[in-house]
């Protein structure tokens, strides 16, 4: 369980995280989704007590992280793949971490085995690929067998086999009743790995809920209609809760009623339909629509001249 209340982090006059409040429930994988620079890593560092919030609080299982008696058994974190001294071997790195908590050497071997690092454990981390670095980061996160896992971009740099492995790991950890909080800037990745989503843009939470709920909430389903009498049909279906747009002549997109209702109305007036298809928004569309708003919001406040969609 991770709870944040009014969490804010400002660096000078730049607000990285802007008054966010959320709860991450145990027993599920929660995806923290947002474009680069949205505040994901900053939020995660604040959860881990590495960065001090400008205001607000964040607790893990009821207490600030630093106040737990056995921090590594409470929360395991992959904050960035290379939070490791490059001159040390993977095994030495894990041994230094394990030593602080009196974690037995057998557990170090266990996490090395678990993450598939056995063959490279004696090699210096400086020569590791990004993917191996990720595995080492996950190995250190697992050292204390923690109740909560915080993984910042865990699939970044992994090969397809590694991505599959992370998905299964997240799934099995969540099924064991643990809290798994993982970030990504890829909506498609989150949809396959997480149960819940927390979408952040420009330091603010812009959507939260189950993956499908978030997608639905963004655009809702639309019905695409092609008919020679488009203008006529548009007048007939248009209502208080029904929005009709015409992306091209002879084609309508209707939001607010389902395909069956549109078909009934058309039939009642004898309007021939050439196409009648329900369209649900794709993950990427939902994400773009969510984050573009956030980008737009920022662009207009900080630099009015910036073109729509500009990152900063």
């Amino acid at each position, binding site marked *: 369980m991770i709870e944040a209340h009014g969490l804010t982090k400002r660096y000078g006059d730049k607000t990285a995280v802007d008054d966010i409040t959320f709860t991450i429930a145990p027993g599920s994988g929660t995806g923290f989704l947002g474009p680069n620079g949205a505040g994901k890593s900053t939020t995660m*560092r604040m959860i*881990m*007590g*590495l*960065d*001090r919030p400008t205001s607000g609080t964040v607790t893990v299982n009821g207490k600030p*992280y*630093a106040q*737990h*008696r*056995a*921090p*590594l*058994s409470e*929360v395991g*974190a992959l*904050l*960035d793949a*290379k*939070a*490791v*001294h*490059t*001159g*040390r*071997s993977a095994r*030495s*790195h894990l*041994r*230094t*971490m*394990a*030593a*602080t*908590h*009196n*974690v*037995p050497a057998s*557990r170090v071997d*266990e996490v090395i085995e678990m993450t598939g690092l056995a063959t490279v454990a004696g090699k210096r981390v400086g020569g590791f690929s990004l993917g191996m670095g990720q595995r080492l980061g996950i190995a*250190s996160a697992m*050292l*204390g*067998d923690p*109740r909560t896992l915080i993984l910042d971009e865990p699939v970044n740099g992994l090969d397809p086999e590694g991505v599959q492995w992370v998905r299964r790991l997240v799934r099995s950890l969540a*099924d*064991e*009743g*643990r809290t798994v909080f993982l970030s990504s800037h890829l909506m498609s990745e989150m949809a396959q790995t997480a149960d819940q989503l927390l979408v952040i843009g420009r330091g603010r939470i812009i959507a939260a809920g189950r993956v499908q709920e978030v997608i639905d909430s963004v655009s809702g389903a639309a019905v695409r209609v092609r008919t020679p009498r488009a203008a006529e049909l548009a007048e007939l279906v248009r209502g208080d809760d029904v929005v009709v747009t015409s992306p091209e002549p002879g084609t309508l997109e209707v939001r607010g009623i389902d395909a069956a209702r549109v078909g009934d109305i058309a039939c009642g007036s004898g309007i021939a339909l050439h196409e009648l298809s329900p369209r649900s928004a794709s993950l990427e569309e939902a994400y773009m629509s969510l984050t573009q708003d956030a980008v737009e919001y920022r662009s207009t406040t900080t630099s009015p001249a910036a073109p729509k969609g500009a990152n900063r």
Partner: protein
Amino acid sequence: MTTTVAVATAVPAHEARPAVLARPTFLGILRGEWIKLLSLRSTWWTLAATVLLMTGVSLAVAASLDTVAADPATGPGLAALTGAEVVSGGFQLGMLTIAVLGALLMTGEFSTGMIRSTLAAVPTRTPVLAAKAIAVAAVTAAVVALGTAVSYTVTMPLLAPHGMVPALDELRTWQVFGGTLYFLVAAALFSLGVGTLLRSSAGAITVALTVLLLLPSFLVFVTLDWVETAVEYLPLPASGAFLGGGEDSLSAVGDGLTPATGLLVVAAYAVVPLVAGAAALRRRDA
């Protein structure tokens, strides 16, 4: 008839049996820092360089004793030089490598990002610095003891003809050896403290070496009274108060201080940056 189907209930692993029953302890943190220090190749290079520099300088001084004694200009000054000072003569160069070791111990973590792993494991933070200080002090003491022992052994044949082999039953000998060790441990802690404050390897090493070596070297040429007084309170000159270096050594500048004051001044250089570093480490974002 009823059929009992055995359903394998998935028992949440961590609730049934924690794979790890772990608590952080200061001893554990110390062990972690010890592993950190010894698992880096740079540590071993630095330590080897320290022993080599200490031995090399003492050997060079000992080898030049014949020439110094023969020269009427320097010959009389030789009487003021003790064998113990010859043996410990390399400590100023050893100071350089030890200072680098002390600084890198902390700045290496910031430059690689390791600090985030470290502070995630020990979120109370201060014990990390304390453990680092103990680890680097121990390793410095060991390497200076080794360097002194090696220097003593290799210079013995050269010192013997001059009757200068340090007498191991004399208090004065142990004052010099012990004082050298004390000073180098302080130098290591000083640069660890500076490294904790500055976080950057280049910055910390520059500041540490400036204070330890460059300032006393250059400021001796300034004859303003207040500068001369200030120089006495720099670490290397202050060490002269208890090491009693020869007239031409940098340590001699600190003759104005009593040995006790010298010890305290050197201790202050070790302690003040560490305390300030601890405060900074606790307060600042990692």
